[in-house]
């Protein structure tokens, strides 16, 4: 694995991961709406491009618009021993298949006493930012992270997209793989190495404040960090990459160093995964925190259509800066 890293967009990295995994494991299948017939022949965001040419229509299947049976049949196929990927065009549509995911796939190992593996990946995209409005823009990752038996992956870079998708397909557990629709064309270096689920990435090193964020919010936190650096606040950014399993050790180590914490997510703030990260950190690192951790998330509102409205409900770099300053305020006052 010492090949030089390639510069790839996220959609191309995902496409490469699918090609590589399908080449390695001939038992894999993928199905979804418009997978081979849309645009340049690769699904709504191109991720399945040339899959049918390479692997044939038995393994790469265009489906009717039937999310309920697609997800439950995906669960049944996986239980019957076929490693199955289901692409759902937008993660909002996964709700139509909630029974297959939550009542069937997530519980199949446990309720049958460990007999069945369910190597199912449900791939989709979440997130806002491109004007898709209330039913095509939600960030629902917290719902799935709450369900025992499901793994939840939220890649934010091309390298993570590649390495995590391959690990998700190899996993014998049902995995929700949520891409971000506003990041498909972001480019990055891809080393083509597998990345285990449950291992956070330090996206930026710093010593004054730990920001935990995923996907579009990691990107905005990085922008915010540059501006905060000019104000003398050195930010460390942790991208968990997977919400279940989730890597608290990397967060604890960072917080022990910075003594301050802010969680930023695009999902609605209330009852979001940020509270889980903060709760764990407060219990584990209480004595090492100089101030109360803070969280920032979307407003408690559906995602609106009009551009300024959409921007208003999701955390911006400016809001991240303001919350960051609030999060370190206590220590700054001590220093003054």
């Amino acid at each position: 694995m010492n090949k030089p890293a390639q510069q790839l967009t996220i959609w191309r990295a995902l496409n490469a991961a699918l090609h590589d995994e399908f080449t390695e494991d001939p038992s894999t299948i993928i199905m979804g709406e418009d997978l081979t017939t849309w645009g340049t022949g690769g699904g709504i965001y191109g991720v399945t491009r040339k899959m049918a040419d390479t692997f044939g229509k038995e393994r790469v299947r265009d489906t009717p618009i039937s999310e309920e049976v697609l997800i439950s049949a995906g669960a049944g196929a996986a239980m019957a021993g076929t490693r199955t990927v289901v692409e759902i065009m937008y993660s909002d549509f996964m709700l139509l298949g909630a029974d297959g995911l939550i009542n069937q796939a997530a519980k199949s190992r446990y309720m049958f006493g460990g007999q069945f593996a369910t190597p199912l990946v449900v791939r989709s995209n979440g997130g806002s930012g491109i004007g898709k409005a209330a039913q095509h823009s939600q960030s629902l990752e917290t719902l799935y992270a709450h369900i025992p038996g499901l793994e939840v992956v939220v890649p934010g870079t091309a390298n993570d997209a590649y390495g995590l998708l391959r690990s998700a397909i190899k996993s014998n557990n049902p995995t929700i793989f949520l891409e971000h629709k506003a990041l498909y064309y972001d480019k990055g270096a891809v080393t083509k190495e597998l990345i285990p689920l449950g291992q956070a990435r330090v996206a930026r090193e710093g010593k004054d404040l730990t920001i935990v964020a995923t996907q579009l919010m990691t990107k905005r936190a990085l922008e915010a960090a540059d501006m905060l650096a000019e104000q003398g606040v050195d930010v460390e950014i942790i991208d968990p990459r997977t919400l279940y399993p989730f890597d608290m050790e990397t967060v604890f180590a960072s917080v022990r160093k910075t003594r301050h914490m802010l969680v930023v997510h695009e999902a609605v703030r209330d009852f979001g995964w940020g509270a889980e990260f903060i709760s764990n950190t407060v219990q584990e690192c209480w004595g090492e925190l100089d101030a109360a951790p803070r969280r920032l998330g979307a407003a408690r509102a559906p995602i609106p259509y009009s551009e300024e409205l959409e921007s208003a409900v999701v955390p911006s770099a400016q809001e991240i800066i303001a919350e960051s300053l609030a999060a370190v305020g206590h220590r700054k006052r001590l220093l003054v």
Partner: protein
Amino acid sequence: MTIETDVFNKFDLGTDGPSALELMSTIREFESRLPGYSEAGLIRGSTHPSVGMEAVAVGVSRALRDSDSVASNHRGHAHCLAKGADPGRTLAEILGRRDGYCGGKGGSMHIGVKELGILGTNGIVGAGIGLATGAALAAQAQGADNVAVAYFGDGATNQGVLSEAFNLAAIWNLPVVFVCENNHFAQSATLEEMVAQPDLHRRGEAYGLPSVDVDGMDVEAVSNAAAEAVHRARSGLGPTFIVADTYRYLGHMAGDTEIYRTVDQVEQWKGRDPINRLAEKLLTSNVLDQAQLDAIAATAVSAVDGAESFAKSSPYPDVSSAFTQVSEDIR
């Protein structure tokens, strides 16, 4: 599409009759004891006996191999036993014991047996329809000649997944047999009240599925319809919808007041009892004499006696197992 109707394995009274009678009798005995276990506090929650409906599971299963999949429903013990599940381990699961197929984690509505292709009884009405469709997809994608069966009741025909699955199975020609056990009640709601098109087979026809009605109280009729459907599926001719007309003699579950039906109706259906009918046929055709019929009945009782003593003597699971097997840790 022409179906070669001669090539499937038809029910033979002489060779298949006695074993079908024994299996139906065992299931009858097994299911009949469940209300007693509930009253004795041995069963927690809900359990749904299928007394009266034995011919469907037994008839369908004759055509199946271990490597074929079945996805069952909340009234699913018979589907498991007919597919070859051990009565002792099945009952141990229903009683929440360590030696149950799922170590007591599943109970009556979540009995799965991987080595027999039993993808589980199911607590969600209609859910097995999607799972079986997926198992058929797996067989087709792997190039295996396995088939999948979905068992569901008339109530499940009102779930949206049925329409989606019929369409998907039809366009992909999946090796799946959809078996509707029409026992005329969705819990307490009647078919007449809740289904706009009571000729259920027409739901299948609307999606281009060969769809047949069979007398679900006649194991021979069910068996032949299922054998033909399974043969079609195995030969790459795609899905079939079978509607088996049947009836449950007991309530939906323990505590059912049964105010939605009359004693007369129940008694009328008992007049079509699948076990009595087969026994009579075996007797009048001189396949078995009365002594042999009595011996089969006794064998069924002793099989369930054995299952009961096995299940009751199995310990409750170790509490630590409540926290295991949620996910496979591959990291």
